């Protein structure tokens, strides 16, 4: 456990000493800030626009960070041979994979917290402006639940990137991971298609794909939250359970593939 923690901390250290991360966070904060301008041209729904743009920015930039750090997690260490001195020590390859995952998970968590603080500050400003016009707007707790669901989604993306990173090159890993990320957004449609098609064979294939491919549809609550709608507790429970199971499968796969590998 201590070894996994050491590897995770080192992964986090590497991420925060990389300048690219800061430019991405800065970009996300600028996007969140830009919602102010969008809010100006949308009278009376400033809060809605700010929440919508803010959460979407967090989700997209978070995904970019997860993909581009995730695909390099293992590959970079193999390529630069920094792994040699690590794996010769009493460290199992599974421990290495888990350490890498938790390191990036913590990096993403810190990023989301920074972006969430930015969003709350912008919202507070918008609220102040509205108050001066005699309107009352609320910052709902569901905003933070939405951020939590974005975090779960990012963990899944990290897991996917890690699986590809354990055997493939960064370019291919990025393509596969991004493809799965986009497919995952519309996964529910695949199942619907099968149901609508009415053909048993098609329905079996589509439902097979539905369970195999990641399903991010249930994590996307941004539209509802921006309209001030609460998030059903059952959905959150379902998402947490889904993430745990799906991640367990992804991490086992990554660890298994990586354990078999001959390092070049």
């Amino acid at each position, binding site marked *: 456990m201590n070894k996994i923690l050491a590897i995770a901390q080192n992964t986090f250290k590497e991420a925060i000493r*990389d300048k690219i991360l800061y430019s991405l966070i800065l970009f996300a904060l600028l996007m969140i800030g830009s919602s102010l301008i969008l809010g100006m041209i949308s009278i009376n729904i400033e809060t809605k626009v700010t929440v919508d743009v803010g959460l979407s920015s967090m989700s997209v930039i978070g995904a970019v960070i997860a993909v581009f750090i995730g695909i390099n997690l293992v590959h970079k260490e193999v390529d630069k041979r920094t792994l040699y001195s690590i794996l010769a020590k009493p460290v199992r390859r599974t421990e290495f994979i888990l350490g890498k995952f938790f390191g990036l998970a913590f990096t993403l968590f810190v990023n989301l917290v920074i972006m969430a603080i930015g969003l709350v500050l912008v919202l507070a400003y918008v609220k102040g402006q509205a108050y001066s016009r005699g309107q009352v707007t609320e910052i709902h707790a569901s905003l933070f639940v939405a951020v939590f669901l974005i975090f779960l989604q990012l963990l899944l993306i990290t897991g996917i990137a890690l699986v590809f990173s354990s055997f493939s090159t960064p370019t291919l890993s990025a393509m596969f991971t991004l493809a799965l990320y986009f497919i995952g957004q519309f996964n529910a449609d695949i199942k619907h298609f099968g149901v609508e098609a009415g053909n048993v064979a098609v329905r079996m294939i589509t439902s097979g794909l539905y369970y195999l491919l990641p399903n991010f549809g249930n994590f996307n609550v941004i539209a509802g939250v921006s309209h001030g709608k609460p998030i059903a507790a059952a959905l959150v429970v379902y998402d947490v359970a889904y993430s745990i199971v799906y991640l367990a499968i992804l991490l086992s796969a990554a660890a298994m593939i990586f354990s078999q590998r001959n390092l070049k």
Partner: protein
Amino acid sequence: MIAINIHELTKDYFVGFWRKRRVRALDQLSLTVNEGEIFGFLGPNGAGKTTTLKLLMRLIYPTSGHAEILGKPFDDVAMHAHIGYLPENPYFYDYLTAEEFLAYSGRLFGLSSTRVKSKIDELLQVVDLKDARRLQLRKFSKGMLQRAGIAQALINDPEIIFLDEPMSGLDPIGRREIRDLILGLKREGKTVFFSTHILPDVETLCDRVAIIYKGKLLGCGSLTELLVGDSSAIEMVVSQFNYELQTALRLIATDQNVAGNMLRLTLPDQAALFNALDAVRAHGGQVVHVHPLKESFEDYFVKLFANESISKAP
């Protein structure tokens, strides 16, 4: 006691994209290394030295064969807490400082933080990186990286240290430092297994050596055992020689050459030496020195590979 026991270790690689070809990088390597000795693992580039070390470190998996280190299977994770490894041309996390890197290495061995701290102070002193402890590894020179690599290999106070080409790319001073370090480890009773293609290092350091070429073991033993070859030959140098003496000696010596006012002779055996001494006395020459000709390790090495390529020829 036996520290390392390698038994018929074999590694095949598959190369090519469509039609995979089998390439044997290591062919049934068997050897033993005794506890407390400095063991040189010698061979030209591409002989299979790094492959062997990577197999023992579990970085790649053998096609067949097995090995024991400290009496445990080489892939026993717990056993790896008692050994240290310096990879070839080490690359480390360049965003870490020397201190952070060593702390990370120590934690991977499961050492307590107080133990790691005291060990870091001690090792940075040993490898002479005290002034660079807060410097990021990206700013290190090659020699400094090599020394940082040795420090991380020693952080757990290992019983056996595996060093892959520890002297490559170092200047003479750097090589001298590493050599002293290895001798220091031996004094502490540690076993050192190092690979190299630099012959003088082997001659000055090793108790025993193994020679590997194209994945095969060519020889293994102490240097005196390996270098028995032509040791009966004797070199004699004579000064104040005249033409008659030179002619007389030409009949006795197998090789003769003149350098300045010195005549250098190679004599095949003791009998030839006595004859040569008689000739020198008769013609009034002066003996400068006489000493037995020991085959240099380089000669042995070259001869060995020449034989190997002849026997391979169709």
